[in-house]
């Protein structure tokens, strides 16, 4: 029998029993859509977490913090494959106080080789990188944090008021309102042994705003030439680490593995990603399992429909067999019908699932915002994501289950006794 004739045969029977077939397709659709939407929550949350991590520039960085690292090895790091730059970062391991007139702020201090730092940090928000040892670059919120007593009081009050409302106040109204670039600030460094260095530095540049809105950056970046100003302060030398900047995220892992094999202490956010991926793989598998139960329940409907179809058509099957239809052909015709139910149900389910997914991602932040008062939208949360892999997995499960459900009735059709079938009343 030609394929077209087989399809016509199946179509004819579907049209004849359209209401029953429609209800069965509906059950298959609901089962499959439930499976996809449920698993899409896992994919969505994973995407949210991934985006959160990827939005941080740190994903292309490897931190190397090991005292055993030799100078030669440190120098050779930049020659490794796909390394964009290697920046040595030295921490100022003590409190750093900045003073400008009656204003003061407390910050972290870091020393960099400015050529390498400029290469990886790129454009500044304002000004230029330090050329002289007594020039500094400051964080985006540095000026905002330079407060006098009045500012500090106002800031404290506003923070308290914001906390009561469960809001966040970052101090936008306070601080130094002039242009900090070009100003000379007095920096004071004091350690626990009461050793102190007080020195004026000229602010020549401001760093870009941090990736996250909730982050405050009021650090002070020195040129590595400035370390000499703090000579004699304990601990000596100041702790330092190397930041290896890779050209892309994909190239982080190979070098990370290599450095680990060398026994060096290294860290990258990418390692966290691996753990997150494992967690979400298990989470998604669980959701798929629960969703598959819905598909299995739908398969009972398909089994019933196909069993009824075979029972109703016993005489027709008998006639077909009598005039020469092979058992394989009869089995195929019924399997095609159950496959049709599975495929149509799955296609509709995929479309519905996408609609639900888009609606959920659009509407849920609004609903949650109304319910909790928190601005969910700003966090760019993805509640539901349907990647093509999920569509493939769900379709395979749904169509596979439909075929298996139809298999037994189809087998039953091939076993129909011609003589018994022909004896049935018309």
């Amino acid at each position, binding site marked *: *029998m*030609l394929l*077209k*004739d087989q399809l016509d045969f199946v179509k*004819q*029977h579907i049209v*004849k029993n359209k209401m029953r077939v429609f209800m069965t397709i509906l059950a298959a659709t609901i089962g499959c859509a439930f499976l996809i939407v449920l698993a899409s929550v896992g994919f969505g949350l994973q995407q949210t977490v991934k985006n959160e991590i990827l939005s941080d520039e740190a994903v292309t960085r490897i931190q190397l913090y090991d005292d055993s690292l030799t100078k030669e090895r440190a120098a050779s790091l930049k020659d490794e494959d796909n390394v964009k730059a290697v920046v040595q970062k030295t921490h100022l391991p003590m409190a750093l106080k900045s003073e400008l007139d009656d204003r003061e702020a407390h910050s972290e201090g870091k020393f960099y080789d400015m050529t390498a730092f400029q290469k990886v940090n790129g454009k500044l928000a304002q000004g230029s990188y330090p050329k002289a040892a007594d020039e500094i670059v400051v964080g985006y919120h540095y000026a905002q944090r330079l407060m006098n007593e009045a500012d500090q009081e106002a800031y404290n009050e506003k923070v308290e008021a914001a906390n009561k409302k469960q809001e966040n106040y970052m101090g936008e109204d306070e601080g130094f309102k002039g242009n900090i670039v070009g100003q000379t600030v007095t920096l004071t460094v004091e350690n626990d042994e009461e050793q102190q260095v007080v020195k004026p530095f000229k602010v020549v540049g401001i760093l870009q705003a941090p990736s996250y809105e909730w982050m405050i950056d009021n650090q002070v970046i020195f040129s590595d030439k400035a370390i000499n100003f703090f000579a004699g302060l304990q601990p000596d030398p100041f702790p330092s680490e190397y930041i290896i900047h890779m050209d892309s995220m994909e190239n982080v892992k190979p070098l990370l593995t290599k450095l680990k094999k060398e026994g060096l202490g290294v860290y990258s956010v990418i390692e966290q990603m691996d753990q997150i991926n494992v967690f979400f793989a298990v989470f998604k598998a669980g959701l798929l399992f629960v969703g598959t139960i819905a598909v299995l329940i739908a398969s009972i409907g398909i089994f019933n429909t196909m069993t009824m179809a075979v029972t109703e058509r016993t*005489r*027709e099957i*008998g*006639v*077909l*067999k*009598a*005039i*020469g*239809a*092979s*058992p*394989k*052909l009869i089995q195929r015709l019924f399997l095609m019908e159950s496959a049709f139910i599975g495929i149509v149900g799955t296609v509709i389910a995929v479309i519905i699932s996408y609609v639900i997914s888009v609606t959920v991602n659009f509407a849920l932040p609004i609903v949650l915002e109304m319910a909790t008062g928190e601005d969910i939208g700003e966090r760019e949360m993805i509640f539901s994501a349907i990647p093509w892999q999920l569509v493939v997995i769900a379709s395979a499960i749904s169509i596979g289950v439909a075929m298996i459900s139809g298999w037994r009735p189809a087998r039953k059709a091939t076993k129909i006794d*011609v*003589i018994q079938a*022909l004896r049935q009343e*018309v």
Partner: protein
Amino acid sequence: MIEVQNIAHTFLIGKKGAEQPIHVLKAISFTIKPKEIVAIVGKSGSGKSTLLQVMAGFMKADTGSVKINGKETTGLNEAEHAAFRLTNFGFVFQNFQLMPGLTAAENIELPLKLQGIPASERKSRVEALMQRIGLAEVAAHYPNELSGGQQQRVSIGRALITNPPIILADEPTGSLDSETEQEILQLIADLNKAFGITFVIITHDDEVASFAHRRLKMHDGQLKEEA
């Protein structure tokens, strides 16, 4: 040529463990030559329908062999039997056994579909045959829109469409009035003459049997040639 040798078959009836054997076919042998019309007659329960079913491969006999045009069919499996039936047999049943959802033309076309014949060829063959057997006017009618005689003509058309050498007919006029019965028998005689098709007709009706070239009578599981 149909050659049946020592066919025997026993049914077991009754409750499990206390079944009674009914010897429905007892070492039956006979030969039917090409182009013959042979009537197998006998009372109800004499085993004539069982014999036809064994010949058609619908059921397996306990012993014996059936050869159709030199091909031993006794050992064929279900799929092989189906393929063999599709090219070697046409079937006409007492209650027509037409597909209610198909038109007269589509019912006749069905065996050609099973053979995988393209639609254009099927159409021309069906049209020609319907013309030949006087069904051209009712080609688009469904079985429930046809008279008993017309339905049996459609059934004969379906049996004929693949040009089989043999047509097995089980009580072909059993559901028809005497006038229509005569029409159908005349059609069978015409087709036998025109196409040289062998007809094996199972009937309990002497008038139907009188149309045949030969009569074989089934009685108590045995077969006798009648004059």
